[in-house]
């Protein structure tokens, strides 16, 4: 009994010191302006790149040739669908914009921007974030918008730079789990709640005419589109209808994004 008590006491002390060490590391990182996390993210982006190259080399080696051929065809078809969906969505965005909106978009389009590679997985983060391969050295700052699609037409905002490092930045997705954004669909104001994986949902008044394919515009992001309506679900007897929103292109198929530098 005494031995068990001593053992438990020793474990408790170790755990206490480990927690203190973790807090000290947090503080050192905070005081140093995020040097530890930046070094970790740099390492992670290299590891991600190496992993992606290794995976690609393995698939190209011919070992999985039959499966690989099918996957390639599948991927090509998916890309084609995504491209067509993106074009259709862009078209809807243009149709939905009125004169004053176009003026805003023209102003936003005149801003500078850079193309940046995505250097991490979209699904690994519990906070709906991902890493891009551009940072302060490239002119990227906290708060810059991250856009996909045809930037000339406004594109779709997928996130905002939250933590700009030297050579890479952490971007928080607009549709990160629990993230709320004010937006409009066909002039109807809604609050979009992110569900992760490029999906979101919102409640709109029952009498609003909303249908699949309608663009979702947010003034919080320079009057730009943040997604399209995927499905509308009308409950029975309720005062609202549930709107399911998605990006017109699957996040996993993205390799590059465009960062609008403010």
């Amino acid at each position: 009994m005494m031995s068990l008590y001593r053992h438990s006491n020793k474990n408790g002390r170790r755990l206490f010191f480990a927690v203190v060490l973790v807090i000290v590391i947090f503080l050192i990182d905070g005081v140093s302006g995020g040097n530890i996390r930046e070094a970790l993210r740099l390492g992670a982006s290299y590891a991600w790149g190496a992993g992606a190259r290794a995976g690609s080399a393995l698939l190209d080696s011919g070992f999985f040739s039959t499966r690989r051929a099918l996957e390639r065809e599948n991927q090509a078809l998916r890309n084609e669908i995504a491209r067509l969906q993106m074009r259709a969505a862009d078209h809807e965005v243009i149709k939905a914009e009125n004169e004053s909106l176009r003026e805003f978009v023209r102003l936003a389009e005149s801003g500078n921007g850079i193309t940046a590679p995505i250097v991490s997985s979209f699904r690994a983060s519990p906070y709906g974030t991902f890493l891009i391969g551009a940072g302060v050295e490239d002119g990227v700052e906290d708060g810059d918008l991250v856009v996909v699609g045809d930037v000339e037409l406004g594109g779709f905002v997928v996130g905002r730079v939250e933590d700009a490092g030297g050579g890479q930045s952490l971007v928080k997705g607009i549709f990160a789990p629990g993230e709320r954004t004010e937006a409009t669909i066909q002039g109807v104001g809604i609050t979009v709640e992110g569900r992760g994986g490029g999906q979101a949902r919102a409640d709109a008044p029952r009498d609003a005419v909303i249908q699949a394919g309608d663009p979702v515009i947010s003034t919080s992001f320079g009057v730009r589109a943040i997604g399209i309506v995927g499905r509308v679900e009308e409950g029975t007897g309720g005062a609202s209808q549930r709107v399911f929103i998605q990006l017109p292109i699957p996040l996993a198929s993205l390799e590059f994004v465009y960062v609008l530098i403010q």
Partner: protein
Amino acid sequence: MLYVRISLAIAAIVSALFFPPWVPLILIGALALRFEALEVLFIGLMMDFLWLPGAFFSPIPLFTIAAFLILWGLEPLRRELFV
């Protein structure tokens, strides 16, 4: 047993980069259940440093806290089953 522990820790670190968050969470749970694995805390810390925007506990580092709770919460069960 040391090999199992090292393998689980490496798998948790790698999965933090490539797989959905529940994968490292399960590996952390397995480590904490079988070993007195303080490295679990540092894997949680690594997850937060990698993916959490901001500094100085804003927003709350959920993965570090989850790692601590798993480590602390599974300790009595570990002692009962494996010590």
